[in-house]
């Protein structure tokens, strides 16, 4: 089996693809000139690069004559940098901004200001928690699903008897990280996972050196820890390398969300037997289509609006069940990677 699709996620997606009620599919017509900004959490890591690739692919398909601006802050300046870029984009008066939000609700004032100027604000990867200032969130997967997936992976790696584990996250401000960790805590209440014990959460700020050192510190900080769950592509690789360097892979396994090509070696040598991810290329592609459709007036940001996103097919906007307010488009599904399929996915 090349990819283990999760039945639940797939079913949820199917439900969305079916057009809602009497509303017709809106056609997204290409060829219009829209200034668009793609804003990752920060520059310099692979997943955001892949999202950029996907967005460029969509831009080409839609024959947008305005070049896509891929702007991002540096990791240590992520929060302030994101706010600055959104503010600048609003001043320039672009057509749409696509944000992977790393600033929690601190980004709200600048996002609101942009929206007030008629700029479409689409979030992807990581939403604005309060949804203020945001038109719609393109969700890679259902966030409560992420919690279950992480709990499932922990159980399948540790076996029926379970054990102690800890989480290595990115930054304390990352909305998606926090939502996933909360979802996992929720999932753990299920008696099925009663043998799993969460010992604590540590932040590596998505920097290789910090994550590496934090992973080593976790070994001593949490006695009896058998697994590090890192829902971040930087954290998971750094943690795997740290365990490998200290020859601890027999005792402590790594899992979480990672990029197959980066994880290949660690899955093969048993340090990271199983991990998950979705396609960031697709996420960038879908985000671009969504933002373009909104900016050209093909669809409105309201529940029930649906459109055809090129090669990926039909999508609809719904209320976001994982936040109090806010709209979302659900992409999905998750892909689980292990020794059987990681090599094929890494190519």
């Amino acid at each position, binding site marked *: 089996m090349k990819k283990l699709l999760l039945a639940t996620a797939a079913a949820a997606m199917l439900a969305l693809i079916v057009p809602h009620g009497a509303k017709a599919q809106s056609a997204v017509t290409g060829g219009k000139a829209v200034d668009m900004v793609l804003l990752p959490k920060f*520059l*310099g*890591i*692979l997943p*955001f*690069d892949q999202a950029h690739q996907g967005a460029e692919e969509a831009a080409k398909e839609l024959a947008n004559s305005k070049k896509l601006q891929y702007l*991002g802050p*540096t*990791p*240590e300046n992520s929060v302030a940098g994101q706010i600055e870029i959104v503010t600048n984009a609003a001043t320039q008066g672009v057509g749409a901004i696509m944000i992977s939000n790393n600033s929690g609700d601190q980004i709200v004032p600048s996002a609101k200001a942009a929206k007030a100027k008629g700029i479409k604000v689409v979030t992807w990867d990581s939403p604005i928690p309060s949804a203020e200032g945001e038109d719609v969130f393109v969700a890679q997967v259902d966030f409560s699903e992420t919690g279950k997936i992480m709990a499932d992976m922990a159980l399948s790696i540790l076996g029926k008897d379970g054990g102690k584990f800890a989480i290595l996250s990115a930054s304390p401000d990352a909305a998606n990280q926090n939502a996933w960790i909360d979802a996992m805590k929720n999932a753990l209440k299920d008696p099925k996972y009663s043998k799993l014990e969460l010992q604590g959460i*540590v932040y590596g*700020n998505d*920097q*290789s*050196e*910090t994550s*590496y*050192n*934090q992973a*080593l*510190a976790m*070994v*001593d*900080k949490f*006695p009896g820890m058998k697994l590090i769950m890192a829902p971040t592509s*930087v954290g998971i*690789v*750094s943690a795997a*390398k740290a365990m490998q*360097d*200290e*020859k601890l892979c027999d005792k402590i396994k790594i899992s979480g969300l990672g990029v197959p*090509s*980066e*994880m*290949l*070696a660690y899955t093969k040598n048993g340090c990271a037997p199983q991990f998950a991810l979705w396609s960031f290329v697709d996420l960038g592609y879908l985000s671009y289509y969504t933002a373009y459709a909104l900016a050209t007036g093909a669809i409105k940001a309201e529940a029930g609006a649906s459109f055809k996103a090129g090669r990926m097919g039909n999508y609809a906007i719904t209320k976001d069940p994982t936040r109090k307010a806010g709209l979302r488009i659900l992409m999905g599904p998750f892909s689980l990677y292990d020794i059987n399929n990681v090599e094929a996915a*890494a190519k």
Partner: protein
Amino acid sequence: MKWLQRHIRPEQVRELSLLLLIVAAVLIFGSMIDGYYTSRTFNRITSSVAIITVVAVGQTLVVLTRNIDLAVGSIVGCTAYFTGAQLAAHHGMPPVVAVLIAMALGCVMGAINGALVAYGRVPSIIVTLGSLAIFRGILIDYSGARTVTTDSLPKWLLELPRLNFVTIGDLDIRAMFALAVGIVLLFQIGTSFLNVARQFYAMGSNPDAAELIGMPARRIVFSAFVLSGTLSGLAGFMFLARFGSITVEAARGMELQVVAAVVVGGVNIFGGSGTVFGAMLGAIMIGTLEQSLFRLQISEFWRDAILGLLILLAVASDAVILNRLRAIWARTDLKLVARDSASPAEAKR
């Protein structure tokens, strides 16, 4: 006491007290952290100290000449990334060539700084503050915001951090730490006994006098920066081996740790005094603090604040304590000289 004063210089008193401080720090952390005295703790501290030490040796040479090199973090980051990218593209590249590439790139970057400071007569703090940003900017542009990933690197490189030089009991002395100690020894001996290297001290003690007696002032400063760059390049290679995945952020802020190591290690920020060995002690002190604070899960903000506090304490103690010590030494020296000249026979005895 007089025997002590004759055979130990004030600077060595300072190094000895730093050694005692390190022991004290280890004892304190040992009582606070369960399972602190393990070979793992030792490994962790020595592995992180190794990289800082190599950079600190170069920084010592620069500081000795009354200059400072703030670009070292960017040089380490650039060489780590560039060497990583080259190794990823050419897997068959022999290890020696990879090390040479890293050192050559560092050397060129150091030479740019050195030329501007020595021949352009621009203050080093301005030059290197500028090149810190410029080198990082070049790296961001060159990398196209991509990461050097562990999977793209050859196997020998990834296994390097685990390579043991020698095992004593439970303690593994890793090859990278052994390399760092080797470099310290080399430069310690060099700066103690080689005429050429003593010129670094002369330049820092009194630049005008050094020039007046015909020392090639510009060339000395220039070569200090070139050496600092080259050693940072070597450290960049070690950084690549240790962390594997290199982003454009690699080694950002390392200059703070390195300057702290040098200053805490007793190298006078106004030049002219201090040793490479002291800088290594400073690096060990800082490495011990850093890794131990990690264990206590103290936030990064506080770790940086503690580093800053250490720098301030070190410089302040230099100004107050060391100057007093020197005054005491000078007074006794005068007395000794006076007595020696009064009765040469006694002095011989």
